[in-house]
């Protein structure tokens, strides 16, 4: 389904984040005249056009044709490993997550750190990647009262998604750990470490090891 979203954008229902990424990649490889941006969502792709130059009907038809041809994107080949110090001061919500899930804190950490996740899309803030899907036993609701400030590097979960706060931001996800790595730097190209389609794993580190891992990852 393709619906107009204002006079200068189409919201393309792709049913999955994978297919949204596949269509975005296809549009980048082979641009449709008049299309100026494609922004992946959870089950959709926002296709923006130049309203002064594009032929909206032609763009809509071309996107519809592309959509029928793109396959579900195979799992991305790039694997990102994010070191995390779990619990304690770094993960203040770990005890609550254990309570809510009926798991021990160690089990929560073990399941989070062994899951292989994918970047579904980036949003919320520069460099913030929505990672999914978590194992169902880690599914928890958001905080009832969001924090006004979640520290930089906080590793958090909500629903079936996990995310890492690239900067100190307000947020309602439950924080179970913290990573010392830089995730967003506007002066690097690309500016984000985690891009749509990347595979992501979390690696448990001790709080004392954080300094060794701090800064820009080698494989940016």
């Amino acid at each position, binding site marked *: 389904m393709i619906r*107009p*979203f204002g*006079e200068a954008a189409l*919201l393309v229902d792709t049913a999955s984040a994978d297919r949204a990424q596949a269509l*975005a990649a296809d549009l980048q490889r082979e641009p449709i005249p008049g299309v100026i941006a494609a922004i992946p*969502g959870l089950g959709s792709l926002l296709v923006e056009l130049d309203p002064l130059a594009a032929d909206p009907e032609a763009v809509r038809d071309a996107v519809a044709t592309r959509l029928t041809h793109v396959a579900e994107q195979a799992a991305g080949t790039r694997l990102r490993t994010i070191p995390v110090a779990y619990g304690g001061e770094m993960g203040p919500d770990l005890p609550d997550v254990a309570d809510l899930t009926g798991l021990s804190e160690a089990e929560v950490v073990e399941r989070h750190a062994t899951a292989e996740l994918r970047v579904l899309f980036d949003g919320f803030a*520069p460099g913030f990647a929505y990672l999914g899907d978590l194992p169902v036993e880690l599914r928890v609701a958001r905080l009832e009262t969001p924090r006004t400030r979640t520290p930089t590097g906080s590793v958090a979960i909500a629903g079936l998604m996990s995310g890492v706060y690239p900067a100190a*931001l307000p947020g309602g996800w439950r924080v179970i750990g913290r990573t010392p790595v830089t995730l967003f730097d506007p002066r690097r190209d690309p500016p984000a470490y985690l891009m749509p389609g990347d595979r992501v794993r979390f690696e448990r580190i001790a709080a004392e090891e954080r300094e060794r891992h701090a800064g820009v990852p080698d494989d940016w």
Partner: protein
Amino acid sequence: MTIEILEPGPLTTVQDAFGRPGWRHVGVPVGGAADPWSARLANRLVGNPDDAPLLEITLGGALIATDELAWMALTGGLRAEAGAIELPIHEAWRLRPGGSVRIRAADGARGYLAIRGGFLVERVLGSTATDLRAGFGGLEGRALLAGDRLEVGPMTGPTARWTGTRSTGPIRIVAGPHTAAIDALGAEWTVAVEADRAGVRLDGPRIEGGEVPSMGLPLGAIQVPPDGRPIVMLADRPVTGGYRAPASVIRADIGRVAQLLTGDGLSFASVTAEEAIKALHQAEGELAKIEPLEAAGEDGLAWAGSHE
């Protein structure tokens, strides 16, 4: 040439007209001027390219000085004075060396002060706009403070006055993608206290809202959270949003929304996408209605201000 911010007012930032539309897939908001139409006009009046860095001044209360003769222009919803002289809006004027301009509240939320030559600030991810939340762009990624100095580029283009008009009346919207509540938007609305560069919340009847899977948000999208209070999304909106969107404000009118003040009333009028595109071409035509100022000699310093 150096411009000094003597008083910044409640919020003054360096912005450009177009922001960073190309980095949303990594979560970077578009940003840029909240009223991009006024920003482009201000630049054109001082002979700058449309996307030259300029000042977005919120609600007034700013005092800005120059060390050399400077051509400037103010557009948008504020007004300017130099000493006791009321300066024209939508027309370039000169500030003498050592002079200062006071920007005051008028009928809108934001003014755009362009200077001939543009401000020399770093380009980050293709734009000079300040991203206040992420803390980059503009001057050190932050709002301007008293004592800040900005360097000005070499002067080039001709100065001008504007002779066009801006649309009035209801704010025009195009339906979609979640059209169920579109008729309910026909009510009378009032701008709520929550009105900033990211969006403008509206008070009025509660309408049908709710959550949807996160989706990319175009400029002007009207999101309705579960509380039923619509929010019109502006320049600093997040890349994605998870609320129902019954309609979007058309591009030709989005700058007018950015000029609304808390307590202002507004109503929406539904138009087709074709009408919206026609309105955009019209707005572009009005933007282009500028006439060059007479080549003024030294006696043309009528608008040269003195220190306050």
